[in-house]
C-alpha cells in the first residue's frame, strides 16, 4: 500500500524574472513502513521534494498524495493540521526550540498541536526519551547538549505523535560518523518498532547503505532507483 504517491510532480520557482524548475515530472511511490532515501548532489531537488511531501510547499503541477490525501489542495491551516497528525520532521540543524528543555521539546507537538492529556504525554515522552537514550538529559536545554544528542531529541520529537511518515532532511550532515551511525540505528529501530515510514534526503553514504530504497535525483529529474525492499518506483 502506497503511503506517498507522486505523479508528474513539478515544482518551478520564480526568482525575479527567472524560472527555476526544481523538480521535473517526478513520479514515485513509497510504501508504508519503509526506509527510503532520496539522494543526489546539492541543487538536485531533494529538499524541494521533501518539502512537497511534508506539505510545507505546494507543487506547481502534478499530483501528490500522502496517506491518501491530495496535499496540494490543502489550505495553510489544513496543511498544518495534516502535518501535526501524520508527519514528523527531522532537520539537518535539529531545529530544537531553544527556550524549551529536552523533555519540553519532545512534549511540544503533543501539547500544542495535539492537546494530549498530561498522563498520556508523560508516558509517551518518557518511553521515547528512554528509547533514544536521553532520559538523563531530559531537563537540559538545547544549548547544553551535543549535536548527536540534539538529533536524538529531534527524532523523539518527530515520533512522539505516532506519525505515519517521518521526513528527515540531511539528518546526519552535522554529526560525526559514530554519532551518525547511532542516529541511523535509532531511526531504524523506530521504524521496526512503530512501523513508521522514514524518507531521507541525503548524500551521506552511511544513510544510503541503511535504507531499503534509494531514489536518485539529478537536476530535478528522478534518474535512478534502487529498490532493496519496501519501495517501488512508479
Amino acid at each position, binding site marked *: 500500500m502506497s503511503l506517498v504517491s507522486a505523479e508528474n510532480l513539478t515544482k518551478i520557482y520564480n526568482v525575479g524574472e527567472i524560472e527555476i524548475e526544481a523538480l521535473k515530472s517526478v513520479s514515485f511511490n513509497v510504501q508504508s513502513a519503509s526506509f527510503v532515501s532520496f539522494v543526489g548532489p546539492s541543487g538536485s531537488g531533494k529538499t524541494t521534494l521533501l*518539502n512537497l511531501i511534508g506539505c510545507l510547499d505546494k507543487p506547481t503541477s502534478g499530483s501528490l498524495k500522502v496517506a491518501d490525501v491530495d496535499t496540494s489542495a490543502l489550505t495553510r491551516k489544513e496543511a498544518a493540521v495534516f502535518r501535526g497528525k501524520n508527519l514528523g520532521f527531522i532537520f539537518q540543524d535539529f531545529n530544537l526550540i531553544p527556550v524549551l528543555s529536552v523533555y519540553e521539546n519532545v512534549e511540544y507537538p503533543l501539547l500544542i498541536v495535539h492537546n494530549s492529556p498530561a498522563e498520556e504525554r508523560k508516558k509517551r515522552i518518557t518511553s521515547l526519551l528512554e528509547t533514544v537514550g536521553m532520559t538523563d538529559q531530559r531537563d537540559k536545554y538545547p544549548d547544553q547538549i551535543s549535536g548527536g544528542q540534539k538529533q536524538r531529541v529531534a527524532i523523539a520529537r518527530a515520533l512522539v505523535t505516532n506519525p505515519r511518515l517521518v521526513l528527515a532532511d540531511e539528518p546526519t550532515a552535522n554529526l560525526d560518523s559514530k554519532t551518525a551511525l547511532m542516529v541511523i540505528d535509532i531511526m531504524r529501530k523506530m521504524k521496526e518498532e512503530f512501523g513508521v515510514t522514514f524518507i531521507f534526503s541525503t548524500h551521506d553514504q552511511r544513510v544510503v547503505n541503511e535504507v531499503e530504497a534509494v531514489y536518485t535525483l539529478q537536476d530535478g529529474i528522478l534518474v535512478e532507483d534502487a529498490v532493496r525492499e519496501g519501495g517501488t518506483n512508479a
Partner: protein
Amino acid sequence: MLKLFKIGIRNLLRYKRRTLLTSSLIAVGVMFVLVFAATSGSFKYIMIGQITDSMLGHLQVHKRGYVASIDSLPLTLNLSAKQEEKVEKTIKEITEIEAFSPRIKFGGMFSNFMETTNIRVNGVYPDKDIATVPLLPSRIKQGEKTIKKGKILIPELLANGLKVKVGDTVVVIATNRDGSVNGKQFVVGGIIESVTGPGGRDGYMHIVDAMEVLRMEEMEISEVAVRLKDFGKLNAVNDKMDKLLSKELNKQGKPIFDVRTWERLSPFYNVARMIDIMTFFIKIMLIAIVLISIMNVMIMAVFERVREIGTIAALGTIPEKILSLFLIEGFSLGISGAAAGNILAIIIVFVMNVVKITFNFGRQTGMVLSPSLKVDDMIFISAIAIIASVIAALQPALKASRMEPVEALRHV
C-alpha cells in the same frame, strides 16, 4: 493556553536586557502618567475644594439673569421672599442636599473715616453659611471665627490697604434698590483671607445687617448656595433641582430660577478642564511610547526567530497559535511594564505624601499637595498599556503566523 504563556515568557527571558529595557520604558510611562494624574488630580481637587468649600458652595440658585450681571451685583435681580421660600421648599425635598445658605450680595463703599474704597459684601446667616461653606471660618485670619450682628469681616487686602484692625469702627455705605443711599457703622469683627475665584475678596456681615444697610423691609436674596452630601452627585442634583424649579415661570412664561453648579460659576473650571486635557494627551503619549517600543521589540523577535517559526509551523502548529504566541509576548511585556509602573507610582506617591509638597496658587500659599492614586486610574492606565502592547504586537504576530513554513525554514 498556559503552555503558550510559558513559552512566550521564556522567549522574552531569552533576550533579558531587551525585555528589561522595554518593560522599563512601559513602566516609566505608566508611572509617569499615574503620578501626573494623582498630582494634577490632587491639585484640582484641592482647588475645587477651596472654591466650593470656602465661598461658592457646590451649586447656587439665582434669579434668571443675575449671573450675567453678577459683576454689578444688581439688587433688582434679587429673589423675592416668596421666590426664596419656593427655593427653600425645593431644597428640603432633595435628600442629597446637606446644607444651604441664602445670601444678600451687594457692592458699596467702605470707610475708616479717613479713607474710602469700594467693597463687595455678602450678608449671610452665619450658621447656614458655615454649614454650606465649611472652610469659611478657616479663612478668618484675625478676630472671631464667626459673623455677629453689628460686625463685619473685611478682606485682608482692604484691611492692609486702609490699615484697619479688628475692633476698629468703620462705615459701609450702599445704594439701595430704590436709588437712595444708606450707611451703617460696623465694628471690624475679623479679617478674612482672600481666595482665588469669584467672591474670593468679599467681606461678610450678618444678613440682618445687610437688610438694614439696603433698607429692605422684606428679605430679598441674591443667591442661595447649596452644599451636597456627596459631591459626586453634583450633576444629578443640579438636574433634579433645575427640573423642579424650572416649573416656576414668570409673567413672560420663562423660568424664574437659574440653577448652576460651581463649574458654571468659577473660571477655575477651565483650569480643571485644561488639567484633564493635559492628562488625556499624556495618556496618548503613553500609548505612543508603548506602541513604538513593543512593536520594535516584536518586529526584532519575529525577524530573529524566522527559522523557529518555520519549525513550529512544520511541527503542525496552526497559524492562530503562532499568532497567539507572539501576542502573548506583547501582552506579557505590557502587563509586566504596567505592574512595575503601578508599583513605582505607589512608591512615588507615598514618598510625596511623606515629604508633603506645598504649593501656592494666586494669593493662597502653603497648600499641601496630597496626591492619591485612584484604583480606577490604575486599572484604566494599565489597561491602556496592555491593550497598546497587544495592538503593537499584532502586526509582527500576523507576519509570523502568515509565514510560509518552507521559506521560514530556509531563512538563515
